[in-house]
């Protein structure tokens, strides 16, 4: 079995809108190992969610994968037919979204929704599927009698647990969690993250955690990938990102957030995120970068390999 589970190579995802072409994900490459949690971190409009949805090929109609490769366990997902892709979703890749209220069917009991997902992918009896669903609920910390509940009868945290049960019931190789705790309060958030981390170990899956909160990623993820304006600017083990961020944007991001356990001054990143229909030339961060030189304006920086686990896309290191 190879160590790498997912490889993304030179992926470009563009939105064709009335305002022009929006280069939401522009030439992004990334590899994720088995049993690894990777935090995909960025602000709104950085392309982090687009990247997540591109992997499962669930982009909105204006969104197109222009070029690149997405290889899951040796299989190029972009070469699959839509019916083959449907089999991958749910079975090989589980998904957890920010708002479980909009992604669960309000008219269907929780148990029926999980059973439906199971039967779509595995050829077993309904009774067996129910047993599986009950077990999945217990694994996410819900009593099995919740199978008979409708989504509105559950609290926000419980609904997110149902989403996670739904995403993990078929023991996928990869879970994509898009801001799974953003709608929840901190105490519940912490428990949901704890659950995701323990499921990762138990099921041997990899997790892509899409989040705007670099502290959350730093606490739970093995590695962090920092996106800005459609580019992947830094990819490194979480500890190293926190203790020694290399990219000026990552440095700025870490300086800009307060921390409950540290007395520190915070500093904003000057300027505003760019309009992706009309991105800055060269390095897209250059108008906000304190170290920008003339070259940064002209030429897009290369992705520099610092060591086996560490990459940064910046002229400072080229």
């Amino acid at each position, binding site marked *: 079995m190879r160590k790498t589970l997912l490889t993304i190579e030179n992926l470009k995802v563009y939105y064709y809108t009335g305002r022009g072409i929006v280069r939401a994900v522009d030439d992004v490459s990334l590899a994720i190992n088995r049993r690894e949690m990777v935090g995909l971190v960025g602000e709104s409009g950085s392309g982090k969610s687009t990247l997540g949805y591109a992997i499962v090929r669930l982009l909105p109609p204006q969104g197109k994968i222009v070029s690149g490769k997405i290889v899951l366990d040796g299989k190029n997902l972009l070469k699959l037919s839509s019916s083959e892709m449907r089999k991958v979703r749910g079975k090989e890749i589980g998904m957890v979204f920010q708002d479980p209220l909009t992604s669960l069917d309000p008219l269907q009991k929780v148990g029926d929704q999980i059973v439906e997902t199971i039967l779509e992918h595995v050829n077993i009896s309904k009774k067996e599927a129910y047993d599986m669903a009950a077990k999945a609920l217990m694994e996410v910390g819900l009593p099995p009698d919740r199978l008979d509940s409708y989504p509105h009868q559950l609290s926000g945290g419980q609904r997110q647990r149902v989403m996670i049960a739904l995403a993990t019931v078929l023991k996928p190789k990869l879970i994509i969690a898009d801001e799974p705790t953003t709608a929840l309060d*901190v*105490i519940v*958030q*912490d428990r949901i993250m704890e659950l995701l981390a323990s499921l990762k170990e138990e099921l041997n899956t990899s997790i892509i955690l899409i989040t705007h909160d670099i*502290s959350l990623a730093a606490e739970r993820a093995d590695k962090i990938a920092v996106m800005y304006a459609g580019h992947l600017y830094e990819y490194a083990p979480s*500890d190293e990102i926190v203790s020694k961020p290399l990219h000026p944007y990552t440095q700025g991001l870490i300086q800009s957030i307060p921390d*409950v*356990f540290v007395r520190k001054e915070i500093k904003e990143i000057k300027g505003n995120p760019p309009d992706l229909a009309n991105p800055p030339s060269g390095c897209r961060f250059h108008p906000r970068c304190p170290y920008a030189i003339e070259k940064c304006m002209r030429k897009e920086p290369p992705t520099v390999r610092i060591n086996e686990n560490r990459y940064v896309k910046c002229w400072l290191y080229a």
Partner: protein
Amino acid sequence: MIELEVVDLKKYFPVQKSFLERLLAKEKQFIKAVDGISFKMFSRQVFSLVGESGCGKTTTGRLIVRLEKPDAGKIVFEGSDITFANEKQLRPLRRKIQIIFQDPYASLNPRMRVGEIIAEPLIVHGIADKKEAKEEALKMLENVGLTPPHMFYRLFPHQLSGGQRQRVAIARAMILKPKFIVADEPVSMIDVSLRAAILKLLMKFKSLYNLSILFITHDLAVARLISDTIAVMYLGKIVEIASTEELIDNPLHPYTKALLSSVPSLIRRKREKIVLKGEIANPINPPSGCRLHPRCPYAESICSREEPKLIFYGNNHYVACHFPLVNRRY
């Protein structure tokens, strides 16, 4: 000097009943949003109200600026009781007390130009004529970093980013040179990299006008950064008040400790965790005694019977708990 004193403040919201429930003459139910809270705020201080959604922190802020009418209790601002003051009596007060809302997309009139939004309070309060108001608004635009001011004056809110809009909201709140600001989650809808600038702007006005700020937030990290004192709320009650460092280093209430142990931090240190069972109870029928007791790992029988009072524990520290975590202190 005490700027604001709140004593046993209460606000209950009636629960909307269905037609059937009305026919059956079911008893009227109330959400006890704020259920008897007391605290004092000193002038030129930043006092943070921290808690999870539904704890009553926003309602408390709205009561203090009198956007809501209290049901009981007392609000004393600069020595005068404003609890039940009518609109006419409130008018001079509205100059001194301003509020900044969470959502900069909803709090600005979309049909007015940015400059007019900022100038309007001066005209409404009869402080300046149109020309003077414009001058002041231009100065204020410069002050909040929206430059060149003449360009921003003419723009509409939809032409601005979230961070810029929140700057407009701050400019409008500050143009009357208030004494007291309620800031209700002013940065939670703003991109991470821009939050620091908004917080700094608030602090700049704080020292410029000798402001007192009631800062409402769910984010303990932000509260730690800017406040002198933090009060933690749970289900309509204040469970703990202390100076910022004291509260973070030495939480006495199990709920505060649970919150602190759940906040994500860049320091990946192993933290002693308090795990609370279940989720926040229903504010319509809150638990008897201490409202945390069904979830608290330290609860004993007294906790379900008797409501703990907010008691002074020394070092500017107050806690409402029958079994505070004091043993950790020594």
